[in-house]
């Protein structure tokens, strides 16, 4: 409990100035840590892990595919939480953080899709299969596109924040529904778990450790990007406010 009490000062980061000042200080470490983890994890995975006896060297794609897929979903979760905070507590930084995470999540989804398709080419004999997982990610990508488009289309920042937050909420429900619907619709081209990239039992320790480092790298990169982009959004918002005041004063 006392921990929570202490952390209640977390809300002070909802102050844009405080947020900018704090992130400014941690940004170099975040970028550095993300870069180190990514380089170590990917180099380790690419150069120093054996081939899988069934998938051959294509197993190396998991170091990109799994972390990006994970972040594609986590980014949406983060947007959902940030949207809720905005709707309940009306902290602008929260809404701007959700906006900042959108394109990052979209790129993560795209990476997961592209690596999945590239992996599927030799494994399934086709670039694109309407496999439930790939399909769900394609739908998630469409949700990201809609979310970003709505932010971009609305001029007034508070209106945009409100509308996108509600869209994120409703979209989350429908994304989960779509996942079930897609599962129902196609039980899967996957020949069981053995030929999947996502199944845990498929991942030996040799692959697992570098994979963990890569996941850490993607998480850190995501945090760094979201912090940085939120800072950008705060500045853009400030520019807007200053211009509006200038116009009102003139």
């Amino acid at each position, binding site marked *: 409990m006392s921990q929570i009490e202490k952390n209640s000062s977390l809300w002070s980061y909802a102050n844009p100035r405080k947020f900018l000042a704090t992130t400014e200080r941690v940004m170099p470490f975040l970028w550095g840590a993300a870069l180190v983890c990514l380089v170590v994890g990917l180099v380790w995975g690419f150069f120093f892990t054996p081939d899988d006896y069934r998938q051959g060297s*294509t197993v190396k794609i998991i170091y*990109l595919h799994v972390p990006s897929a994970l972040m594609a979903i986590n980014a949406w979760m983060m947007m959902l939480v940030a949207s809720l905070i905005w709707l309940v507590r009306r902290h602008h930084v929260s809404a701007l953080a959700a906006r900042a995470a959108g394109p990052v999540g979209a790129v993560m989804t795209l*990476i997961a899709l592209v690596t999945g398709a*590239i992996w599927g080419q030799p494994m399934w004999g086709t670039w694109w299969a309407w496999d439930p997982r790939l399909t769900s990610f394609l739908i998630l990508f469409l949700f990201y596109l809609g979310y970003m488009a709505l932010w971009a289309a609305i001029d007034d920042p508070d209106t945009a924040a409100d509308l996108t937050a509600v869209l994120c909420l409703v979209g989350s429900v429908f994304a989960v529904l779509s996942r079930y619907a897609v599962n129902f619709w196609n039980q899967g081209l996957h020949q069981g778990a053995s030929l999947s990239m996502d199944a845990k039992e498929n991942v030996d320790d040799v692959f697992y450790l570098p994979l963990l480092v890569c996941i850490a790298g993607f998480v850190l990169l995501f945090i760094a990007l979201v912090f*940085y982009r939120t800072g*950008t959004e705060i*500045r853009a918002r*400030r520019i807007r406010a200053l211009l509006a005041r200038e116009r009102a004063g003139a």
Partner: protein
Amino acid sequence: MMPDLGKYTDTVLTAYAASILLLALLVALSLWRGRRMRIEMEQLEARTRRNG
């Protein structure tokens, strides 16, 4: 230096190239826009202060 990727060389290399390209693009665009907004805000704040 280069590990032997067997018959899947193209597949693996394409996946890595595409992913790294996408990530680099995202980071570059973020940094570019971030820098522009920072400069613009500083100019504007300086102007506001000068005008009182």
